């Protein structure tokens, strides 16, 4: 306990200290809770003093002057508030455009992402098509290799059609009747399930002669080199049947193409 500061406590409660003395007491009170409680009780007592003063009824003009001043101030506040309304409207527009801009940016970003996905997908398709072109070029190379002895002036084209089993099938046989080979181009043949294959047959009244196994791509198209020990012109019919994988000595399954040559 600091006797000097304790002497100041009643004057602190009475709000009658110099600024320096007040700061000194307040520092002391933060470290001495018992002194703080004492001061609170003194302050509570002192707060009764104004009630002991003789009340004096103020003249009406004092209240009128005050309330007129207050009314003018309230009106000024209201005017100030009203003037700030346009800026609030501007802020609302700013908020709207900010929101609109953000939404537009988000849509643009989404659009770019979708475009990139589309571009990637197209690139993959192009790559697949390039592979197919390369494969077909290879097939053409084979065809060219197998047709050197063909005399172009003797080449004929025979149209091929699907049977009732596969009526959508269409094809052409490009052939020199005096040659032992021909080019078969076919379309509309569905890819077969595993364990099945298309087999090409050449027929001349007797038993069909196998001309090889045909495969088609996912688009139902196929190019096949037909080869035979006899000249193609010695046969009068071309057939394609569905056979077990590896082919059969004789047609056993559905016949999907059966056309006269």
């Amino acid at each position, binding site marked *: 306990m600091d006797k000097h500061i304790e*002497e*100041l*406590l*009643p*004057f602190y*409660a*009475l*709000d*009658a*200290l*110099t600024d320096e*003395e007040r700061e000194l007491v307040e520092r002391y009170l933060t470290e001495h809770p018992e002194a703080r*409680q004492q001061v*609170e*009780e*003194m302050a*509570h*007592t*002192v*707060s*009764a*003093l*104004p*009630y*002991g*003063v*003789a*009340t*004096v*009824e*103020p*003249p009406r003009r*004092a*209240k009128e*002057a*005050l*309330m007129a*001043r*207050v*009314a003018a*101030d*309230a009106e000024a*506040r209201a005017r100030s508030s009203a003037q700030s309304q346009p800026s609030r409207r501007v802020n609302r527009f700013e908020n709207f455009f900010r929101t609109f801009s953000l939404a537009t940016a988000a849509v643009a970003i989404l659009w770019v992402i979708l475009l990139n996905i589309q571009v990637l997908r197209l690139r993959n398709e192009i790559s697949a098509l390039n592979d197919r072109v390369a494969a077909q070029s290879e097939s053409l190379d084979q065809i060219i290799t197998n047709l050197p002895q063909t005399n172009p002036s003797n080449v004929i084209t025979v149209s091929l059609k699907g049977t009732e089993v596969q009526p959508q099938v269409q094809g052409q046989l490009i052939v020199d009747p005096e040659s032992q080979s021909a080019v078969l181009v076919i379309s509309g043949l569905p890819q077969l399930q595993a364990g099945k294959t298309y087999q090409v047959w050449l027929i001349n009244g007797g038993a069909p002669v196998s001309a090889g196994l045909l495969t088609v791509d996912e688009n139902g198209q196929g190019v096949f080199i037909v080869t035979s020990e006899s000249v193609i012109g010695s046969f009068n019919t071309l057939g394609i049947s569905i056979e077990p994988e590896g082919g059969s000595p004789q047609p056993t399954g559905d016949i999907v193409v059966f056309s006269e040559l």
Partner: protein
Amino acid sequence: MARNKNTTGISVRINSESSRLRAHNETVPERLSDEILVTQVAQGSSAALEALYDRYASTVLGISLKVIGDQASAEDVLQETFWRVWKSAVTYQPQRGSFTSWLFRIARNLAIDSYRRQTVRPQEVYMEVGSDSILEEMPDPGTDVAEQTQSILKNRQVRQALASLPRLQRQVIEMAYFYGMTRQEIAEATWEALGTIHTRARLAVQKLREELDREEFEG
């Protein structure tokens, strides 16, 4: 500690009365607590300020007149006090004390400042106890009678408590509280030793508290 409990109670009352006020806009301002009214003043309600003025203007003018001793200056302080309430209501914090403590401190400080700027001597401040009756002090018809009666009762309790103090002790309290005189100024004005002033102040506050407790004064 007792004051802390009291302020907590005030907060609860404020919340309760705020809810009630929102539910009933027609609530008469004169019936609301000081703390609710000052909250409304902070929100720009001149009606709430008027209600507080009607409730405490006579006390504020009494304090001002006691300190300054000049009617015109005291009225200026009265108006300035409530103008400060109007402009500074948002800064009022119920947890730091009652509204009247805040209000009277504003009035006292303004009055002391005004007094120091002038040369007018303060007048005798307290009425003589027993010089008038409660009925003689009753205000004009139309004011809140219950409220005014309570105010008059408090006035009599404090005056009786002050009257019970030895004159020299009461003098120290008056010089310190109402005239804002420092310990040294009081010692010089009364030709007493500083230690004597310390003792009188301590005893005066202690005695005043005992008397107010005895009279069951509720601030």
